[in-house]
């Protein structure tokens, strides 16, 4: 009996979906739009997070020491700086290591290599590369180094050149998080309301049918399930369409959010997230469809 009810109601759900023409189109497009808006917000915050993470990994503060400073003094500086709670890591790069790195980075440029070999003493400075726990803290760290007792040993701190990038990212991510959360809630509500209304309309269209079903003794489940299945089918269709549309839209939108330099990296990550997003959309779409159907049909099932 349960199996029979399921197969019969599933079949009639499919029939409703395909025989309702314009209403099906309306319901699916509204649901698609809702899913699309929600996913764009999610994807934007994912991209922004990815972008930030990427930048964070790349960015550090380099403190260069004057060439006459002893290694032991630099190591003392390093161990003191590591005690700061804002500091994630502090890596010591000796003069020789700096030279090796420099050579490795310029291996393809023989003139530069020649030039550096022509100089007898190593012209590069030893440095400590500091990474912060939070990119907002670079400024604090830089300031406290500038004011420390080591300041006379320090040749330079290259913080300023990253400041712009860091600041830009910090503001972007803050904006996206704040407005994103708000928009997410707002659009989710709108999506539920609109979907609910569209499905209510389709069910209203079936008013006589439901009345007849009740008269011939159909149980509430037998009446309800076709609409629930119909809602699920709406959701699945909408999720598929929304996912297909999401790709080109993201391609256009992401550069404005994170700056064109990082688009490639982010889009590479986005592909990995795509399956996850698609599954989430399927789930969300089906859920929206089911909830709307259940809410809309309730009033038809009273005695």
């Amino acid at each position, binding site marked *: *009996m349960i199996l029979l009810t399921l197969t019969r109601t599933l079949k009639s759900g499919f029939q409703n979906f395909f025989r309702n023409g314009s209403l099906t189109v309306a319901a699916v497009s509204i649901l698609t739009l809702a899913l699309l808006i929600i996913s764009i917000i999610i994807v934007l915050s994912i991209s922004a997070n990815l972008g930030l993470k990427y930048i964070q990994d790349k960015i550090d503060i380099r403190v260069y020491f004057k060439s006459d400073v002893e290694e032991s003094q630099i190591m003392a500086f390093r161990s003191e700086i590591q005690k700061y709670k804002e500091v994630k890591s502090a890596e010591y790069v000796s003069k020789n290591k700096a030279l090796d790195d420099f050579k490795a980075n310029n291996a393809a440029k023989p003139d530069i290599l020649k030039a550096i070999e022509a100089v007898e003493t190593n012209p590069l400075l030893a440095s400590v590369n500091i990474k912060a726990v939070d990119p907002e803290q670079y400024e604090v760290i830089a300031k406290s180094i500038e004011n420390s007792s080591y300041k006379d040993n320090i040749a330079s701190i290259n913080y300023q050149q990253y400041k712009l990038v860091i600041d830009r990212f910090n503001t972007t991510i803050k904006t996206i998080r704040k407005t994103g959360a708000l928009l997410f809630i707002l659009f989710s509500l709108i999506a539920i309301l609109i979907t609910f209304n569209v499905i209510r309309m389709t069910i209203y269209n079936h008013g006589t049918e439901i009345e007849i079903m*009740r*008269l011939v*003794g159909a149980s*509430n489940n037998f009446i309800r399930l076709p609409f629930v299945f119909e809602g699920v089918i709406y959701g699945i269709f909408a999720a598929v369409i929304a996912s297909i549309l999401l790709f080109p839209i993201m391609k256009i939108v992401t550069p404005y959010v994170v700056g064109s330099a990082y688009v490639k990296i982010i889009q590479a990550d986005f592909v990995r997230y795509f399956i996850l997003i698609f599954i989430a959309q399927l789930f969300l779409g089906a859920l929206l469809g089911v909830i709307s159907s259940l809410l809309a049909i309730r009033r038809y099932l*009273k005695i």
Partner: protein
Amino acid sequence: MIEFKNVKKVYQSGSINTVALDDISFLIEQKEFVSFVGHSGAGKSTILKLIYAEEKPTAGEIIFNGEDISKIKSKDLPYHRRRIGTVFQDFKLLTKKTIYENVAFALEVSGHTNREIHESVPQILEIVGLGSKAESYPHEISGGEQQRVAIARALVHRPALIIADEPTGNLDPISAWGIIQLLIKINKLGTTVVLATHNKEVVNNIKKRVITLDQGKIIRDHSKGRYAI
């Protein structure tokens, strides 16, 4: 089979109360053919609605096969409906389903197997004289034929009771008489029939029990009645 005991029904709409039935009592035995007659608003349809539990009485008891259906729970309602076949003036067919599917639907909802459906539906369509129209849609056939489909649907799950609310209201006299003859035939085969109508000719030709209603009260109950108001 059906007994009304001092049934009262008041429809409430805002602050206005309309008394549809006032202290109604009667007994309908198994295999009877009973016609309820009266003007519009006399309470015919309300009595039928109370029998198939679309409405609940304001006061009184309605006994159906020994069970008080005025207190029926909503989860038991579908099972009650499956014991009854209903026929209406406006046919109430599913427009997007074929004749065959419409009749089969009554069996599908009550969980009959596909085999049972394949056996019963053609049989019942044969009985109502629509064997050749199984694949037509409701809008492709005449009103009289649509009402036969409705009767086939009401009969197909072999209920003990058929309720017909103005089944001839939308039909020409010849089709109407065809429908009534069909109901008489069904009754002869052992099904109780309860009919509500204000068609004088129909009632006078049936020559069975007639209960006459006026303003929510029974004013006459004759075993070989005529339409007389």
